[in-house]
């Protein structure tokens, strides 16, 4: 562990406010934040959190950085992101291990998360030559109309513990080629991965003589988070977290007419049709529900299964759950690690009590695994007689609710009944049923899959959801447009001044 931390420049005490290699900002007033290993409860290292003073220093550097960065041609900005991707390739293993150590997902997932960072950097490099605007035919003679996409400004990125580095990279790599610096407030549960990434960014910025393009301000939500969402110097806040916090962020940013990209709660379901390939379905459910210990935004939380195959599917899922090795996520062969905090364990147990009160029947799990450590739990399957209040709420833990349906209309109604709208899936071999699910009378989610589970999205598509999930889109496709401002231009190359709509004014 010591070697891995050294490779990533993590010290016993680290500074939590930075704009570049020469710009680590210290304030004696800064409070210590201890990062713990969720598998053992042992402290890993400390971070001195940003204060009002050091936050302002970071923002000033980001604003200054924007003035220079927006004048750097986009393909040249892409070269910086290309080098960031190369630096991440070099440190993929240690950074992935740090993700595991600090957050608790298994090493394969931790390293996979860094691969996702590399993928988005590669995507962004190509994008740096494709920030296209449309051209339109003007209704006026000898006029040309077109649109341009201009950089927006310094962007605030507030990310969550469950993807401590990938979500930052979805934002930062795209924002960088768009001409926008980023100021990152990571989760207080995963500050060390952010410090490690900042060191990598500093190296890349130094190689290009840059400062203030990639910045961090680590601190409490009530301190740094509130400063960011109310800060007019940040025209866009990209927030990943709960619906409840998203509402607060949205209101604060809207008050100052800023923009938001919101990636909020999910309550993702898989509909299993009677003609589904059950072997494939069970594998997808296991990965979707148990992966990352049920702490993904896209975790499978609900199974809506046709009543004719409910018994068989349930039997197979329970068998699958029995095979899941739970333990230290750094160890080989482990499929599920701990929950991120003791509070998360409490939240899960309270949810299970409510599920039982609402006539849920626990078919597997439901207990703490104290022998392994305070933050280990059993992945749990609960059969629900109906989609009750607890099923409508997202509990960020490995709880899977099973419900039955009679016809596909009922399945889709149950599916869309919850307030969240992030990810969804159907397992069927019937083309008509699959198309119905993907149609405008089907899934109401931002992501809808056929014969693939709800989690494990690729970076090439736009990621995000509808309803209480917030409506934001990050990562691939044309999500880059959220990080730029659109300008519509009309050029008159005639010697006349015709007005639109044929209006005559004083002629």
């Amino acid at each position, binding site marked *: 562990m010591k070697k891995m931390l050294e490779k990533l420049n993590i010290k016993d005490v680290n500074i939590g406010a930075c704009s570049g290699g020469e710009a680590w900002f210290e304030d004696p007033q800064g409070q210590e934040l201890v990062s713990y290993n969720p598998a053992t409860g042992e402290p890993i290292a400390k971070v001195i959190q940003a204060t009002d003073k050091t936050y302002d220093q970071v923002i000033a550097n980001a604003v200054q950085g924007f003035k220079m960065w927006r004048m750097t041609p986009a393909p040249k900005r892409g070269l910086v992101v290309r080098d960031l991707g190369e630096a991440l390739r070099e440190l993929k293993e240690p950074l992935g291990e740090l993700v595991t150590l600090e957050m608790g997902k298994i090493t394969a997932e931790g390293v996979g998360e860094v691969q996702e960072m590399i993928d988005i950097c590669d995507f962004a490099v190509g994008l740096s030559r494709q920030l296209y605007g449309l051209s339109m035919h003007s209704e006026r003679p000898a006029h040309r109309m077109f649109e341009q996409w201009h950089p927006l400004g310094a962007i605030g990125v507030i990310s969550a513990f469950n993807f401590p580095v990938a979500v930052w990279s979805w934002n930062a790599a795209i924002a960088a080629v768009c001409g926008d610096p980023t100021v990152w407030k990571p989760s207080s549960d995963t500050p060390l991965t952010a410090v490690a990434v900042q060191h990598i960014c500093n190296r890349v910025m130094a190689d290009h003589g840059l400062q203030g393009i990639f910045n961090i301000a680590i601190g409490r939500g009530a301190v740094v*988070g509130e400063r960011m969402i109310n800060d007019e110097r940040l025209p866009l806040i990209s927030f990943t977290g709960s619906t*409840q916090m998203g509402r*607060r962020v949205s209101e604060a940013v809207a008050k100052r007419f800023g923009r938001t990209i919101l990636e909020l709660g999910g309550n993702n379901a898989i509909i299993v049709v009677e003609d589904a390939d059950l072997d494939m379905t069970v594998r997808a459910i296991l990965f979707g529900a148990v992966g990352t210990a049920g702490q993904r935004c896209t975790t499978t939380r609900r199974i809506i299964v046709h009543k004719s195959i409910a018994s068989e599917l349930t039997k197979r899922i329970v068998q699958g759950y029995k095979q899941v090795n739970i333990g230290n996520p750094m160890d080989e062969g482990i499929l599920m690690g701990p929950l991120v905090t003791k*509070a998360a364990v409490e939240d899960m147990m309270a949810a299970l009590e409510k599920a039982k009160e609402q006539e849920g029947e626990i078919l597997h799990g439901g207990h703490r695994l104290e022998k392994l450590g305070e933050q280990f739990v059993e992945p749990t399957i609960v059969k629900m007689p109906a989609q009750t209040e607890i099923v409508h709420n997202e509990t960020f833990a490995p709880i899977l609710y099973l419900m039955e349906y009679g016809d596909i209309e009922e399945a889709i109604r149950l599916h869309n009944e919850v307030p969240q709208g992030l990810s969804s899936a159907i397992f069927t071999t019937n083309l008509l049923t699959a198309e119905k699910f993907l149609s405008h009378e089907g899934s109401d989610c931002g992501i809808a899959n056929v014969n693939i589970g709800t989690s494990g999205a690729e970076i090439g598509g736009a990621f995000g959801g509808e309803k209480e999930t917030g409506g934001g889109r990050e990562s691939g496709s044309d999500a880059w447009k959220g990080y730029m401002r659109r300008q519509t231009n009309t050029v008159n190359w005639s010697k006349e001044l015709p007005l639109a709509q044929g209006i005559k004014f004083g002629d």
Partner: protein
Amino acid sequence: MDIEVSLETPVEDLVEKYPEAVGFLSRHGVRCIRCGEPLWCTLGELL
């Protein structure tokens, strides 16, 4: 270090110092953490 809990207590502090309070409060309809993270408000704002 212990903290005195009042309506003005930041939820982030409460969750860090007394994680067991999360289960207790949740059973009484007050959820301090969502998506695995504490809310940024005070305890009073949740009630």
